[in-house]
């Protein structure tokens, strides 16, 4: 387990109410084996399974969430695992196409339910096992493949939801669905079991979620990450004790439940729960423990590019900040006078025409020459040189010229986001 770089800080986590779809375990049983957890020779205790499922459902209601039900279908014992039925974002439902014939007929039941509820519905063209393999986090869709969902369906998800897909490869058949190896705690925070992923996917996860919680072998085997989170409360198997302690130290509130009987079919809390993400109003989610920054977004005088500036404005506004966007081709004097007039918390210089190194060096000198702006946070990012990232030397030169941070194309946005988070948490001052 990694000692979290965020540390055991007093982050106040905020819960938001969710809408879940669940399927009663009326016909739940283990009569076939499509994953290593299933052993049809050992009988299931249906009453115990029902009790465990009921407890999860009751907890959701106690936590203030809405639970919808889909009618179980006789002969479909795995239908209780509603997470596998579809992926739902922004009011659009991409209904699953199951790999195994044993589960294929579930898709019709889920399709009918979503159509009857007024969702925009499509059934996946390629094998795709819903939220079992597709999880929303950080504005992306994290999408697993390797055992069930076909990689070609990742493209389909990207098109259907209009969100970028991050493909992740699973390599351990005990963790055959993404949601058995990775859990989303809030938009910025995930927990995962690294050994379930290919080396490349591990690297992607480290890059995108540097503050993620990584779980132990024991917690992974207890299906610890197969949990649901409302941003504060994490409903999870009681057996994952290390993980529960780690979550607590990060400001989450773990709520343990017994899922032993469900686990005999290879399912846990998350598997029983499909999140219905309705279209959200444009209002950005209020972020915990943060303050709103006033930010000037600008380009340099010689750069007429627009879309990078539009992107940064949207991104910063989504994080709850106030943005004054000066647009492209900003003359040096105009930037200085706007900074003096509005006294921003942060100035973001974004440029992609390859002159950023020279223009930036000149600009920061002018800003720092004003006593009022000597301590203002000023960062620069984009494509700063004409021949790709300029490396350490040009970065150091921009830093010593007076920039507080330099974000070059490539991993720049992840680092930029981390920088603004430190600023809003006040940790940087």
């Amino acid at each position, binding site marked *: 387990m990694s000692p979290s770089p965020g540390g055991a800080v007093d982050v106040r986590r905020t819960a938001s109410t969710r809408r879940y779809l669940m399927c009663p375990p009326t016909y739940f049983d283990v009569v076939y084996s499509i994953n290593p957890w299933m052993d049809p020779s050992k009988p299931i205790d249906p009453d115990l399974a029902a009790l465990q499922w009921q407890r999860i459902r009751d907890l959701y209601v106690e936590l203030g969430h809405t639970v919808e039900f889909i009618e179980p279908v006789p002969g479909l014992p795995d239908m209780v695992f509603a997470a596998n039925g579809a992926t739902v974002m922004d009011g659009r439902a991409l209904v699953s196409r199951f790999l195994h*014939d044993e589960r294929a007929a579930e898709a019709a039941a889920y399709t009918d339910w979503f159509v009857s509820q*007024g969702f*925009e519905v499509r059934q996946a*063209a390629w094998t795709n096992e819903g939220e079992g393999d597709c999880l929303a986090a950080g504005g992306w869709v994290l999408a697993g493949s390797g055992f069930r969902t076909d990689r070609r369906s990742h493209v389909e998800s990207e098109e259907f939801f209009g969100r970028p897909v991050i493909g992740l490869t699973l390599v351990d058949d005990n963790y055959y669905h993404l949601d058995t190896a990775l859990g989303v705690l809030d938009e910025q925070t995930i927990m995962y079991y690294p050994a379930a992923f290919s080396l490349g996917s591990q690297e992607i996860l480290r890059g995108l979620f540097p503050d993620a919680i990584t779980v132990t072998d024991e917690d992974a085997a207890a299906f610890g990450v197969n949990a649901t989170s409302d941003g504060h409360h994490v409903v999870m198997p009681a057996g994952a004790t290390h993980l529960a302690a780690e979550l607590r130290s990060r400001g989450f509130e773990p709520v343990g439940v017994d899922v032993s009987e469900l686990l005999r079919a290879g399912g846990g809390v998350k598997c029983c729960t499909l999140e219905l993400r309705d279209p959200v109003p444009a209002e950005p989610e209020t972020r915990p423990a943060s303050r709103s920054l006033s930010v000037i977004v600008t380009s340099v005088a010689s750069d*007429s590019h627009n879309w990078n500036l539009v992107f940064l404005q949207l991104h910063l506004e989504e994080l709850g900040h106030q943005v004054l966007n000066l647009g492209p081709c900003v003359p040096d004097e105009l930037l200085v006078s706007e900074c003096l007039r509005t006294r921003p918390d942060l100035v973001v210089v974004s440029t992609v025409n390859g002159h950023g190194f020279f223009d930036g060096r000149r600009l920061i000198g002018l800003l720092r020459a004003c006593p009022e702006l000597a301590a203002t946070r000023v960062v620069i990012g984009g494509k700063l040189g004409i021949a790709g990232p300029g490396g350490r030397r040009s970065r150091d030169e921009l830093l010593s010229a007076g920039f507080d941070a330099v974000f070059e194309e490539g991993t720049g946005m992840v680092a930029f986001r981390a920088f603004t988070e430190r600023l809003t948490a006040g940790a940087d001052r």
Partner: protein
Amino acid sequence: MSAEAGSSGDSSRSSGGSPRSFGGSSRSFGEFVARAHAAGELVVQPRMGMSSPITMRAGLLATKRAIATTVGTITLDSYTRVGDNASAAAAVGSGAELNGYPIVAHDLATTRGVLEGIAGPEFPVQVRHGSARPEHIFRALMAAGMHATEGGPVSYCLPYSREPLESSISSWVRSCALLAELGEGGGAEPHLETFGGCMMGQLCPPSLLIALSVLECMFFVQHGLRSVSLSYAQQTNADQDTEAVLALRRLAAERLHGVDAHIVVYAYMGVYPRTPDGATRLLTEAARLAVRTGAARLIVKTVAEAYRIPSIADNVGALETAAAAAAAERRGAAGTAGTARGTAEDTGIYAEASALIDAVIELGPDLGAALAQAFKAGYLDVPYCLHPDNARRARSYIDTTGRLQWSSIGSMPIRPMIKPSGAVALTSAGLISSLSYVERKFDTASLGEYLALPVRPAGSAEPVRPAGSAER
């Protein structure tokens, strides 16, 4: 779809024959295009511009010799565009490469030498520049004997400069007057094309694009031009594009009287496909759009677009691919008894564009002043454009069928006409995804099957595939 699209279709090329023999000689750019159009040929045009006079001349010659009905292009460099002639001249002096032809920095004899024996009534050459204050450019091109160019007081101001809109408008008033004088002597008829159909390259819904195209051409006519062209840049959905160009043609006929006017389509101006096949298919779609809608001219993009400044050979390849695709589309349409041309579902583009145009016209008889006032009032509002004179309240998105829609109209007077879309405002992640929508659509080969599956609208349940039929 791609069978006749490739440049390998020899039979479809043969119709290119002798593209310049329309009979008689054209007095102007507009007349050349009109003759070609009457003869059933789509005029295709590159975007090329080279800093070296030798290379520029070679580019024009290759364009002229391409197996297609072509007009030539001289695209200017960005120093000349912003009026920084000192930097352009310094680069010419030191032999440094610029990203276009510095028509002001090169002396007159040099530019005449580039055109000598190539440009003429049967091969008109247009200057493309991107300048919000183009007087110096107009003077230079006229001095060199050219009489066709493009741009506009709004379309070359808002997206690419910080020039106040009012100063761009007054500069364009003077520039139009300069150009119009040419025609009064009984010489060549000057031609001016609006860039209004492009605004930001992507994510601008068609009604605003065509309203700006029409308004800028009306502005040109008000300031003395008698030969103009109206532009429209290919967007994200072929059906929507068809409806838009047909609406543009109808509006041109209704709003521009007694002048020569034609429609020019731009091949997609946003993030371009990276695969040669994807880039070719996108260009082919643009050529088909032009033929289907009765446009007279097409400005092409090349397979190299996503990587680098295209070479002369890249350009010739694109011109010939587009001409072949246009010929194939024309033959196909001839086989279907005239129904192919001029039909598209009316989703309200024409009505929206008319309302926008009327709102500007009602602000007063001086169109320049009316345009400035319309932007101030937010009656015209280009989504995502950060220019200080743009209201910046309108926003747009790509819906699930690939059509551009408004998510916010700001103060534009089209409220009663827009359909409630239930759209969510575009997020930063959604923006990235939208900007690459066309690139992904054309680059992802495996998407073919996906696109063939209809989206099932809520409430129209149809049986999913029978249980057990799922592929492994």
